[in-house]
C-alpha cells in the first residue's frame, strides 16, 4: 500500500496559488451573483471582474517584491514556480485582461456580454494562463493550457455568429491536436528522463550528456509543435487569421497578446536550456522557424483585404520576431521579449479596439468581412482624431520611432546583434520594412483616399466612454512609451536576470 504522505502546510507554500485562486474565486463569485439574481447589467460583471483582476495584480506585485528579496519561490510540491518570468508574464496577462474587460461596455448590444458566464469563463481562462506561466511542471502547464484554451474556445463561440462558430470549431480542433502533441512530447521526455519537471529533465539530460539525443529531439519536435501552435508559428499558425476574423475584434486583440505571452514563457522554459546546451538542431530549427514565421506572415499580410485579418497576420509576424529572443537566449533578448510584448500589448490592443469601436452590426454593402480597408477610406475627413489615433497605432506597429513598439524592436534587434546573430538582426530589420507596407496601406486608405459613400454607418458606432478610455490609455502608452522604457527595462532585466535566464 502507499505510504501516507506527510506534508506540512507551510512547505506547501499554498500562497503561491494566490493569484490564480483570486481569479477563480472571482469567477465563482460572478456565477453566484447570477445564481441569486439573474439579468443584471453587464457593467456589474465588468466591474466585478475588474476588481478581482486588480486583486490578482496586487497579489502578483506582492510576489514581485518578494522575488526581489528572496528570489524564486517554489510551492505545492514544487509544482508552482514563481520566478521573475512567471511574475512578469502574469503582470502582462492580468494587465492585458484588465484593459480587455472594459471593452465589453460597448454602446451596441452584443450577445455574449449578456451572459455572466462569459465573465466567469474569462476569469477561469486567466487563471489557466497564470498556471501555465507559473510552473515548470509539464502537467501543470498542460492543465493550465487546456483550461485556458477550453475557456477561450467558448468565449469565441459566444460571439454568436456563424463565423465565430466556425472559428471556434477550427481553433478547438487544432487545439485538440496540439494538446495531443504536447502530451506525446511530454511522454517522451518522461520516458527518457523519468520526470516531467523541466529543470529535472534538464538535469537528467545533462547527466547522461544527451545520450538519447534522437529521442530528445523527437520530444522537442512534439513540444515545439504544440507551443508553436499556441504562439502561432508557421506552419502551425493557420488558425490565427480565421479565428481572429471570426471572433470579435476585442477578443482578437486579446488573443494576440495574452495567450501568446503564456506560450512564450513556456517556450523559454522548455527550449532555452536546450539551446544553451548546444543542441544545434534546435538552434537551426528555431532560426528557420523565426525567419519563416516573420517573413511568411508578413508576406501574407501584404495581400489581405480585411484589416482584422491583416492584423492577425501581423501579430503572427510579431510573434515570430519575438521568438528570436528564445533563439538568442541571452538575458538581453529575454528582457527584450518582455519589453516588446509589454509595448506590443498597448499598441495592438489599441489597434484592435479601434476596430471594435468601428464595428457595425451588419456587413457593409459589397463586403464579405467586418473591417475591409475600404471602410476606413477617407477617415481623416470624417473623423480626424480617430484616423490620427489609428495611424498612430499602425506606425507604432510598423516600428516608426518614437512610438511604443519601436523601442521593443530596437532592443530586440540590439539583442540579436549582441548575441552574435547579425544576419538575423538584418532579417528582422528588413521584415519590419516589409511589414511597414501593410500598415501604411491602412494609413493610405485613411488619409489619402476619399470616403466611400454609404459606409458612414460603420464609423464609431460602437464607441462608448470605456472604449474611448481604453483607446486613450493605449494611445498615451504608445506615444509616451519612450519614458516608460527605462523603468520597464530596469525591472524586466532584474527579474529575468534573477530568474537565471
Amino acid at each position: 500500500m502507499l505510504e501516507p504522505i506527510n506534508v506540512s502546510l507551510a512547505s506547501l507554500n499554498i500562497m503561491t496559488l494566490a493569484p490564480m485562486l483570486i481569479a477563480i474565486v472571482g469567477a465563482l463569485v460572478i456565477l453566484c451573483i447570477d445564481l441569486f439574481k439573474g439579468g443584471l447589467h453587464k457593467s456589474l460583471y465588468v466591474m466585478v471582474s475588474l476588481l478581482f483582476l486588480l486583486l490578482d495584480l496586487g497579489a502578483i506585485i506582492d510576489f514581485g517584491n518578494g522575488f526581489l528579496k528572496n528570489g524564486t519561490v517554489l510551492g505545492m510540491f514544487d509544482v508552482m514556480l514563481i520566478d521573475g518570468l512567471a511574475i512578469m508574464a502574469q503582470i502582462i496577462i492580468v494587465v492585458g485582461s484588465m484593459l480587455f474587460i472594459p471593452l465589453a461596455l460597448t454602446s451596441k448590444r452584443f450577445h455574449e456580454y449578456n451572459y455572466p458566464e462569459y465573465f466567469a469563463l474569462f476569469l477561469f481562462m486567466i487563471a489557466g494562463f497564470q498556471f501555465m506561466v507559473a510552473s515548470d511542471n509539464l502537467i501543470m502547464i498542460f492543465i493550465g493550457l487546456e483550461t485556458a484554451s477550453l475557456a477561450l474556445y467558448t468565449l469565441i463561440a459566444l460571439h454568436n455568429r456563424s463565423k465565430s462558430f466556425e472559428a471556434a470549431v477550427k481553433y478547438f480542433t487544432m487545439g485538440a491536436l496540439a494538446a495531443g502533441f504536447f502530451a506525446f512530447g511530454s511522454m517522451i521526455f518522461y520516458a527518457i528522463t523519468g520526470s516531467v519537471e523541466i529543470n529535472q529533465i534538464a538535469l537528467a539530460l545533462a547527466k547522461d550528456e544527451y545520450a538519447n539525443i534522437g529521442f530528445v529531439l523527437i520530444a522537442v519536435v512534439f513540444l515545439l509543435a504544440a507551443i508553436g501552435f499556441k504562439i502561432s508559428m508557421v506552419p502551425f499558425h493557420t488558425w490565427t487569421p480565421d479565428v481572429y476574423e471570426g471572433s470579435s475584434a476585442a477578443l482578437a486583440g486579446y488573443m494576440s497578446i495574452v495567450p501568446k505571452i503564456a506560450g512564450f514563457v513556456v517556450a523559454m522554459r522548455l527550449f532555452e536550456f536546450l539551446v544553451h546546451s548546444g543542441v544545434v538542431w534546435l538552434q537551426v530549427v528555431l532560426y528557420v522557424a523565426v525567419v519563416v514565421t516573420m517573413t511568411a506572415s508578413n508576406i501574407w499580410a501584404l495581400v489581405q483585404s480585411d484589416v482584422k485579418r491583416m492584423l492577425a497576420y501581423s501579430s503572427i509576424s510579431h510573434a515570430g520576431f519575438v521568438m528570436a529572443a528564445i533563439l538568442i537566449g541571452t538575458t538581453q533578448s529575454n528582457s527584450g521579449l518582455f519589453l516588446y510584448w509589454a509595448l506590443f500589448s498597448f499598441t495592438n490592443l489599441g489597434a484592435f479596439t479601434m476596430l471594435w469601436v468601428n464595428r457595425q452590426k451588419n456587413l457593409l454593402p459589397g463586403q464579405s468581412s467586418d473591417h475591409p480597408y475600404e471602410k476606413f477610406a477617407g477617415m481623416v475627413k470624417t473623423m480626424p482624431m480617430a484616423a490620427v489615433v489609428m495611424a498612430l497605432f499602425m506606425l507604432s506597429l510598423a516600428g516608426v520611432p518614437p512610438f511604443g513598439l519601436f523601442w521593443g524592436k530596437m532592443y530586440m534587434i540590439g539583442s540579436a546583434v549582441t548575441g552574435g546573430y547579425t544576419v538575423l538582426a538584418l532579417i528582422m530589420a528588413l521584415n519590419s520594412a516589409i511589414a511597414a507596407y501593410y500598415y501604411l496601406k491602412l494609413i493610405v486608405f485613411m488619409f489619402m483616399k476619399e470616403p466611400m459613400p454609404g459606409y458612414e454607418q460603420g464609423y464609431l458606432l460602437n464607441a462608448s466612454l470605456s472604449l474611448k478610455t481604453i483607446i486613450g490609455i493605449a494611445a498615451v502608452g504608445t506615444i509616451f512609451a519612450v519614458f516608460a522604457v527605462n523603468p520597464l527595462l530596469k525591472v524586466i532585466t532584474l527579474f529575468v536576470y534573477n530568474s537565471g535566464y
Partner: protein
Amino acid sequence: MEIYLYIALFAPLVGSLFAGLFGASPKTVITGIVTSGLLFTSFISSAILLSFVMSGHTVHVEMMTWMAAGDLYIPFGFVVDQVSVTMMMVVSIVSTVVHIYSIGYMDHDKGFNRFFSYLSAFVFSMMVLVMSDNFLGLFIGWEGVGLCSWLLIGFWYHKESATWAANEAFIMNRIADLAMLIGIFMMYWSLGSLQYDVVFANIGNIPVEVVTWIGIFLFIGAMGKSAQFPLHTWLADAMEGPTPVSALIHAATMVTAGVYLVVRANPIYDLIPEVGLFIASLGAFVAMFAATMALVNRDMKRIIAYSTLSQLGYMFVAAGLGAYWVALFHLMAHAFFKALLFLGAGNVMHAMHDELDPFKMGGLKKSMKWTWILMTLASVALAGIYPLAGFFSKDLILEVAFVEQHYILYTVLLLTAGLTAFYSFRLVALIFHGNERHLEHGIHPHEAYNFVLFAMAPLGILAVIAGMAFKTPYYEMVTQLLPAIEYHIHNHTVFWIMTIGTQLFVILAIAYAYKKYAKAVKVDEKVESGFFYQLLYNQYFIPKIYDEVFSKPYLKLSKLAWKEIDLKIVDATVDGIANVIYRTGEKTHTMQDGNLSSMLRWMVIGLVVLLVLAVAFTAGYNVVNLRAM
C-alpha cells in the same frame, strides 16, 4: 587711387542695377543715358588710373574675403597694373561707345531697358575679369561675361536661332571653363594659393610637368572664351544677338579674355615654351581657318565674326611665342577697329531692315556716307595698311614670328593677312559699292542718327591713330610688367623687303576684292558648286559634325538613360523586388484555404518535417555552435 578703382569697377554695376529696375517697364531713354554716363565715369576713372600706372605705380586693393575654407583663402582683390589698366581702358572706351550707340540702335526695341541692364552687367563682369588679383576672381568675371553673353545673344528670345545660339555659346564656354577650373585646382594644390603674385612667385618651384598641365588647362579655358578651334562654332552663331553686343562682346572684349588670360599668366607660359608653341600654332591655324570661312560667307556679321576669330588667332600666336605685350597691343588695336566695323555693320543692318546678306546690298556709300567712311577706315586698319592701327599691331606679330624663326607660322600669317584684306574689302565693296541691289527688295536706306555716328567717331579716330601714337608709350608702360622683348629684324634690308612686301600683298588683295565685287556681282556657278566653296561655305561642316557627333547622340543617350536605364533597369529592379514579395504573398496565401482539414494537415506536415529533420540530424549528430553564424 582706390576710389577710382572702385568707381571704374562698380559704376557699370550701378548702371546695370538701375536699368534692371526698369527691366519690365516700357522703354525709358533715361536708362540708356544713365548707363552710358556711368560707363563714361568708369572710363574717366580708368583714364586717371592709367595715368597713375603710367607713372610706374600699381593699385592693389583687397575689398573683402570671398571664400575661406581650409587653407584656401580667396578675397575680392583687385589690382590695377599695366596689363589690367590696358584692358580697363579698352573695355571702358568701347563699352561707352557701344552704350551710346545702342541708345540709337535699340531705339525701337521693347527690351530697351533690359538691354542696357545686361550690357552694363557685362561691362561690370569684364571689369572684374580684368581687374581681379587672383585666378578665381578672374573666373567670376569669366563666368559673368559668359552669363551676360548668354543673356545678350538670346536677347531676342522669341527667335529660336537666337536662344539656340545663346545656349550653344554658354555650354561650349562651360566646357572650357571646366578645364580652367581644373587648372585652378591644380594651381591651388601645388601652390596653396590662387593670388597672382603668390602663384607667379612660386611657379618656378614646382615640377615642370605640373606647370605644363596647369598651362594646358588654363589655355583650354582660354580657348573656349576666345573661340579657338575646336570650340569656335559658337562665335559665329552668337551673331544672332543685337549688333552692339557683337561689337562689344564678340569682337572687342569678351572674346579677347582668353588672350588676356594667357598674357596675365605669362610667368607660367614662360616656363613651358612647348605649350606656348602649341598655342601659337593653334592660333596661326585658327587665323587661317577662320579667314578662309570668311571668304565665302554671305552673312555680313558672320564675316566680321570670322575675321574676329582670325585676329584672335593672331593674338594667340603672339602670346604663344612669348610676345605678350604684342598680343595685348594687338588686342587693343583690334578692339577699336573691330568694334567700329561691327557698329558700322549695325548701321547698315538698320538701314537694310535687318538684311544681312551683302549680296542684296550695294552702293550704300551714297546714302550712308559716314558709315561708309568709318567702315572703310576700320577695314583698312584691319588689313594692316600703314599708318593705321592694324599695321603696327598685326605686322608686329608677323615680325615676331619671323624673329622667333617660326617661318611656317610666319607664312601662314602672311597668307592670312592677304585673305583678311580680301574678305574685308569684299564686304566693303559689296555693301557700299556697285549697284543698289536692295532697291529690288523695296528698301530705302537711311543714315543712322547723328549721335550714333558721333559716338562711333572716337573709335574711328582710335583705329587710325592707336598704332602710331600709342606704340611707344604703351611699350614702355606695359613692359614694366610683361617681358620686355623688342622684336626687330636687325637686317634692314630684310626688314624693308618684308614690310613693303606685306603691304603690297595686302593692297593687291584689296584691289582684287574691289575688282571682283565693286562693280557688278557675278555669281560663278561652277566655283560655288565646287567642293572647296561648299566646304568653306558650310564652315568645314564642323557645326554639322558637332550636331551629329555630340548633340544628337547626347540627347539620344539621355533618353536612353532615362527610359531604358532609369525606368527599366534601376527603378524596375526596386519595384521588381517589391513585386516579387507581393506576388509571393498572392501566390502562397491560398495555402490558407479556410478548410479545417488542410489546416490540420499543415500542422501534421510541419510536425513530420521536423521529425524527419530530427532523425536526419541525429544520424549526423554534431555539436557546432550556431552562434558562429
